[in-house]
């Protein structure tokens, strides 16, 4: 009997012949006593034989690790100024009213199902997101030159964009500002790009190193990819002025470099959605191409729902169509299609005029509270006569302030005052309240004074 002749032998015949071959084969382990008993005795999975025994424990993520440490601290006056998640005056997370409304709508709609979205995500969400960032009357949209795909928040949008560039763009280097969000280099490296830096922050002025930026982009290769924070630069809060943006645009276009915008704070920086999109829109207005990663984590408070979008503005509609088809090939083997819940909430809000207006009001309230915290902290430090110029606190924009404190000062503040922040001196203004500003001001004052 031929063991391979599966159609004519019975199952037990096959099993017997297979077993016979195992038992007579020199590679077989223990013989006799049944299959499973011999396995136990010849078990090579005792100790020390895992294929992964060499795997070392990875260091804590520096940003998320701050929250881990904060949670462990029993002090009643502890303050978490680490992660960029908005907090109310009472120090609580905030779910926007308009989001709750949208959620209720979704629950009440019995016809709603949870089927797979297309690979590119919720189509209505994609269209509305493009309008939000580029403006409803954007020539690129009207000419169908934009492809927008739903991705997992800003991170996912950056990663998908980066992978697309690594496969289809002729230059595989991306220039990112120094400093930048800690996750940027890893995202682009894993996407297959190599990462270089351009000067951005000037510690002396705690402002923009504009000369350095122009020099570095000026000497970066023609055609290089350039990562730009659309507004509210993370972690410094330092943004170029409108005039400086115009110079940056001209330089980038003259060197045929490809701008990749990270827009994580639209509406959060100034309180105005259009103003915060101005840098991007000026690049699109010149007819050129660019990539934009959009996140709704902060401006709609949808953090954990992972809602975002990647847009690629192309020269023609035909190119945009082909680009979209290739984006799908990046996405399918990563997670097949994006999560439906958060995108449905965003679409419900953006498509409804009343809900959209309510959103802009709630958004402005969050932005205004942060601006107020900046002023309160600045005033508190001035009142204490804390040495140094602290005006950058009110000049910087968005959720974060780069205080200028060094890592020893930060460590001191954590140990003595239970203030949790990243060691680069970045604090999340959203984590402050009128009640806690004095405590932070005391801590900064003490940290600075002891260094003197």
């Amino acid at each position, binding site marked *: 009997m031929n*063991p391979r002749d*599966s159609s004519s032998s019975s*199952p037990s015949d*096959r*099993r017997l012949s*297979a077993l016979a071959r*195992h038992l007579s084969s020199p590679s*077989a382990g223990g013989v006799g006593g049944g299959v499973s008993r011999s*396995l*136990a005795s010849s*078990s*090579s*999975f005792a100790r020390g034989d895992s294929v*992964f025994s*060499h*795997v*070392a424990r*990875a260091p804590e993520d520096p940003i998320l690790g701050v929250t881990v440490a904060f949670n462990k601290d029993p002090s009643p006056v502890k303050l978490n100024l680490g992660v960029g998640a908005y907090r109310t005056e009472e120090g609580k*997370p905030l779910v926007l009213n308009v*989001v*709750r409304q949208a959620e209720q709508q979704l*629950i009440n709609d019995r016809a709603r*199902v*949870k*089927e*797979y979205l*297309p*690979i590119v995500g919720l189509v209505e969400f994609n269209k509305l997101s493009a309008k939000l960032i580029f403006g409803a009357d954007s*020539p690129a949209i009207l*000419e169908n030159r934009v492809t927008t795909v739903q991705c*997992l*928040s800003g*991170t996912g949008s950056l990663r998908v964009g980066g992978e697309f560039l690594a496969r289809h763009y*002729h230059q595989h280097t991306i220039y990112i500002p120094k400093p930048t969000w800690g*996750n940027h280099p890893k995202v682009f490296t894993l*996407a297959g790009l190599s990462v270089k830096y351009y000067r951005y922050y000037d510690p002396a002025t705690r402002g923009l190193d504009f000369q350095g930026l122009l020099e570095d982009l000026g000497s970066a290769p023609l055609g290089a990819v350039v990562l730009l924070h659309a507004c509210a630069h993370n972690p410094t809060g330092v943004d170029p002025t409108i005039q400086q943006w115009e110079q940056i645009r*001209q330089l980038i*276009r*003259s060197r045929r470099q*490809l701008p990749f915008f990270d827009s994580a704070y639209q509406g959060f920086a100034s309180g105005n959605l259009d103003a915060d999109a101005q840098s991007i829109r000026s690049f699109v207005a*010149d007819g050129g*191409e660019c990539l934009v990663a959009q996140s709704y984590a902060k401006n709609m408070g949808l953090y954990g*729902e*992972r809602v975002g979008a990647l847009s690629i503005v*192309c*020269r023609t509609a035909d190119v945009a*169509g*082909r*680009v979209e*088809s*290739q984006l799908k090939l*990046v996405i*399918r*083997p*990563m*997670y*097949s299609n994006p*999560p439906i*819940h*958060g995108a449905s909430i965003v679409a419900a809000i953006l498509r409804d005029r009343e809900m959209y207006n309510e959103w802009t009001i709630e958004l402005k309230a969050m932005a205004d509270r942060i601006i107020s915290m900046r002023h309160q902290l600045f005033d508190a430090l001035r009142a204490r006569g804390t040495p140094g110029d602290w005006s950058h606190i009110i000049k910087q924009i968005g959720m974060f302030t780069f205080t200028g404190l060094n890592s020893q000062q930060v460590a001191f503040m954590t140990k003595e005052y239970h203030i949790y922040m990243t060691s680069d001196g970045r604090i999340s203004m959203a984590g402050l309240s009128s009640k806690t500003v004095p405590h932070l001001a005391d801590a900064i004052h003490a940290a600075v004074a002891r260094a003197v």
Partner: protein
Amino acid sequence: MAAAVRAGVSGRILGRGSAVGARSMSSWWRSVEPAPKDPILGVTEAFLADPSPDKVNVGVGAYRDDNGKPVVLECVREAERRIAGNQNMEYLPMGGSVKMVEETLKLAYGEDSEFIKDKRIAAVQALSGTGACRLFADFQKRFSPDSQIYIPVPTWANHHNIWRDAHVPQRTYHYYHPESKGLDFAALMDDVKNAPNGSFFLLHACAHNPTGVDPSEDQWREISYQIKVKGHFPFFDMAYQGFASGDPERDAKAIRIFLEDGHAIGIAQSYAKNMGLYGQRVGCLSVLCEDEKQAIAVKSQLQQLARPMYSNPPVHGALVVSTILGDPELKSLWLKEVKVMADRIIGMRTALRENLEKLGSPLSWKHITEQIGMFCYSGMTPEQVDQLTKEYHIYLTRNGRIR
């Protein structure tokens, strides 16, 4: 023409020199080829575009009720009612919802699993089954860089894409026997034996996709034995637990056999089908380690791979799962609903086979009831599939797989 005028106008508004980069630039993407349509999801795209009122979509793997409508389980509706308005939407940890992961491990490894008690399992929430497989493939590439993955023939098409994008070399092993429309067991065992020691093997835990052909319990024991002898790494893709037989414990049998036999396994679990949470993208990747310390190390490295991909996984679907599995009443309702879905599919298989036999088809259709799970490998050729689509508006994948 209008575009050029607009560019000129905006050039004047933005100042001199902004004409630079406008008309002089051509697209970076001229050479980008249009990508082929996804063989599975492309079927649904074509179906949606078809205006025929008689059209039927038996392509994509999503459950339908008797009226052909997608189903949201009652336990899911109830869980969402409880969640709405109560939860904030803060970031989950990088490893996802701890509660969801705990409950999910119990399903795969057993309620009273010693491995759970001893904290030997490194586990993270993942973006459904796809995301779990991709995370594992990336992890395999990083920590077993010289290894290759053996993938059954046939398999879910996206498996090939996943390990390719992770840059892990892939090979295939025999699985489906077209003549008998069953398992090519002897060839499978030969492939396991002939693979270099320490190869990685992708196994479908139950309800093989696309064939519906599963090894018997005895066959699983032999496969386990031979894999052990060769020191291979078994990675299970379990997308249909509960869906195959109607009983999640029974559907986990292959995994439990391997655990008894002392393998260090990896598992990708998905709630897309068995909880109907398709679009929520909820799943879990687990890797069984030697001890707690190693599990902590492996988990931390899995998180390092997730962070630059999406930072942390989506909260909503995970909350639905942990709400259901954490509540005895809801969990019991879920188990009932899963059984109903599985029974309906088994009923459909019987009905389809009977109908074909009644129509006097000269071919053998017994494989329809012998195969298991959501899919049936009809045995049709791509040309026969095209004919079905063109003349009868029936949409299925070109490999002849029917849902």
